[in-house]
């Protein structure tokens, strides 16, 4: 097992927010979707991985190396794409690339040129004049041009139109084909991950609620829809959350096999989307139906 990311017991406290006992791991060759609502701690976790913040406790191992002690060796192998532009607006694409390039020992200029062609990046345009989608593509090109083995993406698709989002997913799919790299994709736009993620880690209010394969998640959980008079007394404890509308109720339940057995034909049972899972696990409302 080649674990590219191994985080154990990570914690961080600052005013108004705490990251508590974060643990998860990611093997080489897979994509992990890191999902959670805004403010759940996704960006904080990434900042701790990249040493933009200092952790209070726990361990972060990247490529089997300590992320602080072997900081430089680790960062050489990481490509990063952040949501907000962190490049110099006044520089052109070419100038910005020339600034980044000398820091990486394994910079591959030919690869960068390939991405420039593929993405249609205008080398002589100032970064501030690029569209949001182009800025992201430039960040991606730079991240992929030094033989990075781990791609860390922090909300890379927020504010982008569906076309660009789809292009990104296609690029990631091609990237995963050799099984050599891993992608850590943090987002609250779960539809991007519905298709592409191998693993899903859900974070909420600083805690990991679940971390498993997407397969297991979709197998284990189901959406149950029924009329208002649906009798849930036999399986109430299996429900994560319940929503009531004028015409019926809908909820997320675990242990799909059990649910089907107990409710059978009296309810509609469906595959959940990642958004369903996110919503029901992190819902603040207590819209539970009392069972009769």
């Amino acid at each position, binding site marked *: 097992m080649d674990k590219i990311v191994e985080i154990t017991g990570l914690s961080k406290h*600052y005013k108004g927010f705490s990251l508590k006992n974060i643990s998860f791991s990611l093997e080489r060759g897979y994509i992990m979707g890191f999902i959670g609502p805004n403010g759940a701690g996704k960006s904080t976790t990434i*900042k701790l991985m*990249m*040493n*933009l*913040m*200092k952790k209070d406790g726990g361990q972060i191992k990247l490529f089997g190396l300590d992320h602080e002690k072997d*900081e*430089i*060796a*680790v*960062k*050489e192998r*990481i490509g*990063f794409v*952040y949501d*907000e*532009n*962190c*490049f*110099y*607006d*006044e*520089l052109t694409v070419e*100038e910005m690339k*020339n*600034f*980044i390039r*000398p*820091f*990486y020992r394994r910079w591959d200029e030919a690869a960068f040129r390939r991405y420039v062609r593929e993405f249609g990046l205008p080398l002589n345009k100032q970064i501030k004049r690029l569209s949001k989608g182009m800025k992201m593509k430039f960040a991606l090109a730079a991240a992929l041009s030094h033989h990075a083995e781990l791609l860390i993406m922090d909300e890379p698709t927020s504010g982008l139109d569906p076309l660009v989002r789809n292009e990104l997913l296609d690029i990631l799919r091609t990237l995963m084909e050799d099984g050599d790299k891993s992608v850590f994709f943090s987002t609250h736009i779960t539809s991007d991950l519905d298709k592409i993620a191998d693993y899903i880690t859900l974070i909420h209010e600083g805690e990991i609620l679940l971390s498993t394969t997407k397969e297991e998640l979709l197998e284990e959980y189901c959406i149950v829809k029924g009329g208002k008079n649906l009798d849930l007394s036999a399986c109430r404890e299996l429900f994560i959350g319940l929503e009531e509308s004028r015409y019926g109720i809908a909820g997320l339940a675990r242990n799909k096999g059990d649910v089907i057995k107990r409710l059978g034909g009296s309810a509609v049972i469906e595959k959940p989307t990642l958004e369903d899972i996110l919503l029901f696990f992190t819902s603040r409302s207590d819209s539970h139906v009392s069972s009769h």
Partner: protein
Amino acid sequence: MYHLIKKDLLVQKRALLLALCLLVWFSLTFSGMGIAGLSLSVLAVTYFLTFGASASDEKNRSDRLLISLPVRKSLIVAAKYVSVYVIVALTLFLVYFIHLVIKFLQLPVDVFPFTLEGAAGSVAASTLYCALSFPLIFKYGYMKSRMVNFILFFLTIGGSSFFLDWFQENAGLIQKIKEFFAERSDWETAALFVTPALVIYILSYCLSLSFYRKREF
């Protein structure tokens, strides 16, 4: 390090042009100030360019980029400190160039003299000023320390002219100091001036680095 410094200049292409104009302006208006004219103009332009780079860094939130790159924080901070001297050298060169042009075209204007003492004064003033203000920038960021840095800047200028006045008044002391240095070789004189400046600069670097290491982004 070269690339970090180059970036500082590259992000301010427009500012460099403005710096040139400022130097022309200073050369003409400070002409009556003698040696101090050179030191002050260089200090002013160095302030303008060095902190212009910091402002650009902050505006672009590029600390996140720099720290995510495989480069040590010690190098990032060191580059800033070294860039000051690069900018001072560049500014001195520009001033010299301006004076050459004026002489060549035989323009009927007075400019302050370009002397070694003036240049040394530029280096000393810039060193001192940056040694004091950089730690603030590395701890609080450029924006938050802007006001304090501005005040420090004027204190440095005010302090320098106060210092010069004081020199004027204490001619006797000056005489003794002159004798003291006359007895020393050129190298010893240089060392006596450069060493404390370097020490302050290095202490400032250590402080800035420890601030930068602790800072969260």
